[in-house]
Structures are given as C-alpha cells and as structure tokens.
C-alpha cells in the first residue's frame, strides 16, 4: 500500500489555553486509501494527543464525525482523502458553538429535534400484532428514515446560521418522517409546530442540506412536501 504525504490544516481550539480558534497544520504520512478519520486518528495517536474530535462507528451510521472538510460538510469516516487531494482543511461544523477543536455543542440541535416529537404517536387501538404497512406506504417515508442525525445538513443551512431559533432541516425532515408515516396519528400536532416562521417556512430551498447529507437524502424535496401538507391541512 502506497503512502502519501498530507498537509492537514485543522482549526484548533483548546478552551484551557486558547482565546479563539486558530489554524494548525500537520504534515503527516498516511496510506493512499485513508479516510479523513484515518488522518485525524494518525494525528491524534502519533503527533498530537490533544486533538479532540468525535468518532464512534467508523462506518457512517452513528453520525458522530460530521465536520467541514475543504469547504463542505462530510462524515470523516466515509470520506476518502483522495477526494480532496493532499491538502486538507478541517473545521468543526458551522453554526454551532465549539466545545474543543472539532467537537461542537449539539445540544441546540437535539433540543430542536425533540420539539417536533420525534416518536410514534398512536391514538387508534393497537393491533394484535404489528402495524401493517404496504410497500407504497413505506416507500413514502423510506428514505427519510435513513437520517443518522449527524447535523451536517443543519450546519450547512444558510437559513439556520443567522437564526438559531429555526428548526433546521434535520428536525423538519424528522417531522416529515412521522407526519407521512401511515401508522402515526400525531400529524396535526407536528404540523402545528412546523407551521411557524421558524418552522418549515424558513426553508428557502437553498439545497445546501441536500448537498451536505452523507446519506444522500433528498431533504429539500421532503421539506417541500411538508410545506404542501401544512397548507393542505390548514385549508
């Protein structure tokens, strides 16, 4: 396996000694099939143990390692270095406060998610066995259930940056996922929550969320359908 030289420029912030974030460049050698996470691990394990970043599953399912690499939000674990060449610029997600280095404070993100009641609400009598869903009914929500809550979309959304009250694409996608779920009865409650100037109407179809989503979910499309549902529901 061939080794390549990488210049990794990382936005560092150590709360115990830094007043504000600053860039630090690491010149390292990694295998040519490395991912961004391999690069961070290499730095953390062999060069500077103080580098902080989140990672867990390293197979793009936990959503921990979302960060901004060379100008776009990606999951570090699934993104190969060769996609960007040998010069990397790694930053924490935009739109969130920085706890340390690449670790951002995701509390507001999850608080917004909780606001749209991200769980099944059932009013009808429970069936004896499972809820039966037709393939067509599943098809409608199938892709939106793939969201891993990595926050790459919300951190890429220009509507979210200036307005921290905006629910953001991830929470609204979750609202779509339950509103259009044939088993769920909580659509009215959720539609009332998203029918707000800081709800679905602050989506200006900029498509940054769709560009950023590591799961390639067509977020903007689902948000548009949610908008139509809100209108339909209030007629």
């Amino acid at each position: 396996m061939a080794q390549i030289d990488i210049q990794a420029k990382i936005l560092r912030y150590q709360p115990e000694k830094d007043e504000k974030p600053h860039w630090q460049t690491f010149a390292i050698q990694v295998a040519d099939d490395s991912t961004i996470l391999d690069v961070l691990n290499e730095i953390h394990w062999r060069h500077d143990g103080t580098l902080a970043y989140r990672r867990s599953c390293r197979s793009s399912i936990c959503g921990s390692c979302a960060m901004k690499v060379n100008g776009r939000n990606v999951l570090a674990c699934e993104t190969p270095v060769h996609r960007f060449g040998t010069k990397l610029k790694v930053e924490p997600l935009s739109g969130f406060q920085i706890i340390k280095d690449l670790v951002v404070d995701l509390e507001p993100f999850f608080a917004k998610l909780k606001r749209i009641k991200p769980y099944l609400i059932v009013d009808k009598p429970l069936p004896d066995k499972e809820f039966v869903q037709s393939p067509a009914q599943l098809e409608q929500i199938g892709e939106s259930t793939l969201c891993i809550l990595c926050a790459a979309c919300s951190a890429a959304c220009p509507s979210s940056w200036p307005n921290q009250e905006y629910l953001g694409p991830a929470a609204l996608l979750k609202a779509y996922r339950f509103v259009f779920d044939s088993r769920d009865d909580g659509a009215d409650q959720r539609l009332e929550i998203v029918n707000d100037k800081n709800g679905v109407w602050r989506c200006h179809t900029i498509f940054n969320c769709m560009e950023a989503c590591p799961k390639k979910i067509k977020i903007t499309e689902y948000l548009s359908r949610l908008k139509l549902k809100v209108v339909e529901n209030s007629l």
Partner: protein
Amino acid sequence: MYKRTRFYDLTYYNFVGSWAWILHRLSGLALIFYLCLHIWVIHSLTYGEEMFNDVMAFLNTTPFKLLEVGLWGVILFHAFNGVRIIIVDFFQGSLAHKKLFVALIAAAFVLWALGSYLLLSHVF
C-alpha cells in the same frame, strides 16, 4: 466553550442552489430599488408636462439604455428563478433543481439577448 458570535459561514456557497438563492435575494433588492426610482421618475408628472418630458429625454440617453439592459437581465433572472422555486415547491422539482436552473436561466438568457437587441437598436 468558544462562543461564536457570527454564525454566518461565508465560505459555504459553492453550490448551484446557494448561488441561485443569493442572486435571487440580490435581484429582489435591486428590483425594489428600481421600483422606488421608477415612482420617483413618474412623480415628475406632478410638476407638469414639460418637466416630465425633460426627465424622459434625460432617461433616453445611452447610459440609461445600458442600465435598462441590466434591469431587463435582473427582471428575467428573478422571474425565471422564481418559476424554478415554484416548480421545486409544488411539482417535486427538487429532484432536478440544477437542471431546472440551467434550463430556465438559458431561456432567460435568450430572452435577455433578444430584449437587449431591441432596447439597444434604438441607440446604436
């Protein structure tokens, strides 16, 4: 924790959708500005026919014709991107929003070229 005071990320705009959005906003502001100017120009009518004709003659000079060509471009961009947004929101256009952008802006460009020719043929 580092409290970011400015959340806006000005480096995160390298996409068709975000450029379309920025240009849509800017063209909207330009159109509001034009509308104010337009009302201000029309208000010269209140000073009588002669004053109005003077203003109109002034606006018929080459620099203003060139500005009109620009205005025509701004109107077309705002209108055609507006159509794109309507298609995105009402007719599942999200799935092909980049192709829609290219197709509609190409159509707008053709109309811009035709309109500019007509506008400028009075001058040159």
